[in-house]
């Protein structure tokens, strides 16, 4: 007779919190940029890099789209401009028309300063909150913070993270790939 396969508990590793991705650390911006480019060439798409200061080459290296923020700001500005003009015109010429110093009710030149200010104000709001919104901030909790040495990302270390969601992601091969990039301290980042 043949022995039955032993019904064993699944190993603890399998119920361990799901994996977010692999975090690789580099020493210089140059390494990071190079690594990023290689990663993308390799076909990874869900990749992000973390650095203590903006590195413009990264955007290209990671093949990001140019942001839409400027449009948002433009719209904000136009909105402010319109609001200001309408408000002033409505208040002084329509809702309660009063003779002030013999000036015309709708004295446009006098409305310019406020119009200008509100344009700037609305545009600025659009810029800041647009940026935060698109960046999905505030987000105090994020998986990458689970990476042990990630605190250095705001000091002098440079990180590259390939997310587990990436179709090409495979724990072993990806880890090997990252090592091939000359990264050190490659860490598994939990969700």
């Amino acid at each position, binding site marked *: 007779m043949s022995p039955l396969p032993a019904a064993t508990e699944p190993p603890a590793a399998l119920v361990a919190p799901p994996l977010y991705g692999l975090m690789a650390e580099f020493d210089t911006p140059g390494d990071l940029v190079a690594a990023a480019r290689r990663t993308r060439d390799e076909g990874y798409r869900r990749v992000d890099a973390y650095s203590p200061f*903006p590195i413009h080459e990264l955007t290209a290296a990671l093949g990001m789209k140019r942001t839409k*923020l400027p449009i948002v700001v433009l719209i904000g500005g136009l909105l402010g401009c319109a609001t200001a003009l309408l408000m002033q015109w409505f208040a*002084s010429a329509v809702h309660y028309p009063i003779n002030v110093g013999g000036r015309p009710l709708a*004295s446009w030149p006098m409305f310019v300063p*406020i119009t*200008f200010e509100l344009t*700037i104000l609305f545009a600025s709001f659009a810029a800041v909150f647009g940026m935060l919104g698109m960046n999905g901030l505030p987000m105090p909790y994020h998986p990458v913070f689970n990476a042990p040495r990630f605190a*250095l990302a705001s000091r002098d270390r440079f990180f590259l993270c390939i997310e587990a969601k990436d179709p090409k992601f495979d724990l072993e091969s990806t880890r090997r790939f990252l090592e091939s990039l000359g990264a050190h301290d490659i860490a598994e980042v939990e969700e």
Partner: protein
Amino acid sequence: MSTPPVDDPRSASILEPGHTFASVTDKISSIVLARRTPRFWWVGFLLAFSLTMWLFAAIGYLLVRGIGVWGVNVPVGWGFAIVNFVWWIGIGHAGTLISAILLLLHQEWRTSINRFAEAMTLFAVAQAGLFPLLHLGRPWLAYWLVPYPNTMALWPQFRSPLVWDVFAVSTYATVSLLFWYVGLIPDLATLRDRAKRKFFQILYGMGALGWRGSAAHWHRYETAYLLLAGLATPLVISVHTVVSFDFTIGIIPGWHSTIFPPYFVAGAIYDGFAMVLTLAIPLRAVYGLEGFITLRHLQNMAKIMLATGLIVAYGYMIEDFMGWYSGNAFEAYTVHNRLTGPYGHYYWALMLCNILTPQLLWFRRIRSTPWILWCIAMVVNAGMWLERFVIVVTSLHRDFLPSSWGMYQGTVWDWSIFIGTIGFFIALIFLFIRFLPMISIFEMRTMVPTAEVAGEPVPAPGRIEGEV
């Protein structure tokens, strides 16, 4: 090639050689994260704080007794309040100017001074904002200057420069605040990661909004920062232009002049930089930041002061010239009265402070001797206050009908509130340097030579090649 040491006047470096990402980060964040608060901080802060308390006392008394406790009267309906308002707003110009305009002009040296210059802006504007409220006869009704639906079916009178002020100043304050905060986010993240105590971790963490330095974020971040700079630049120009409208819209000889907007703006920058120097020179000394705020910075600021100072001088000249050239008897008399009238000495003091003294800045030796620079900056601060006093008071105290001419003098309460705001301002500065990085850390990192990606030119901030 060997760069001369930073303490050499001829040095051109804006960051002491030898700094690394780590050293920059630790040096600046340690000031904030240090467990022990230095004694001089306590001394200075308590001093400023007591002045602040006196300010509030004075304000209380003012609100109870009425505006009569000041020296204002008819004809001189505006006194210290408006003088101080314009003065503080002027000071509030340097910050945004440095961050915005110099950014657009790729003046990298701005990085080590823009942060506390911006903070200074905010605090100065806060002081300025007090006065339009306090100088009202019925301050508790100040909200009537804001358009809002009400049961009286009434609106502000949008032709009045004072309403423009409300919009200009509040916009300026808001935008400056946003600008400052956006700049702070990555640094707050840095502090969050450096902080030892949980409390501070959470505190800075909340401010950092979960910033993690992702490339995607940096990209949008820089775009937004650049756009803000682009918006703030015309704004900063507009604010003092609008403030100058308070006078130019008026019919009073000495106010009714087209030269005001440009020369107010120039004056504001002049004064603003003077105040930056006033703060920067002691700060770099006590916190040993000579490596970050180098002589190069001081020299550049001195040069800007010299330039704007000359513009202001030109402004005075044109004013007096027009008084004569216009052929208008009232204008002519106003100029004559400024030079020789009962307030003549104010005018000549102003000339001494704003025009003669700054000429010293032509000399490099002086530009590169911090303590002299500091003295000159102080003189200019005083001079710019005098300028506003001359504009407000001498124009009003003798206008069209000699029968209504009068005199004006600040009372003890005028002075209390003026000095008080200075104390308040300094107190805020002290809090700032204790709890926030007074120099932009992440921007300093970009100053470190190794920040450049080998073999690739650093593109201008915010710009992006390689559309994909």
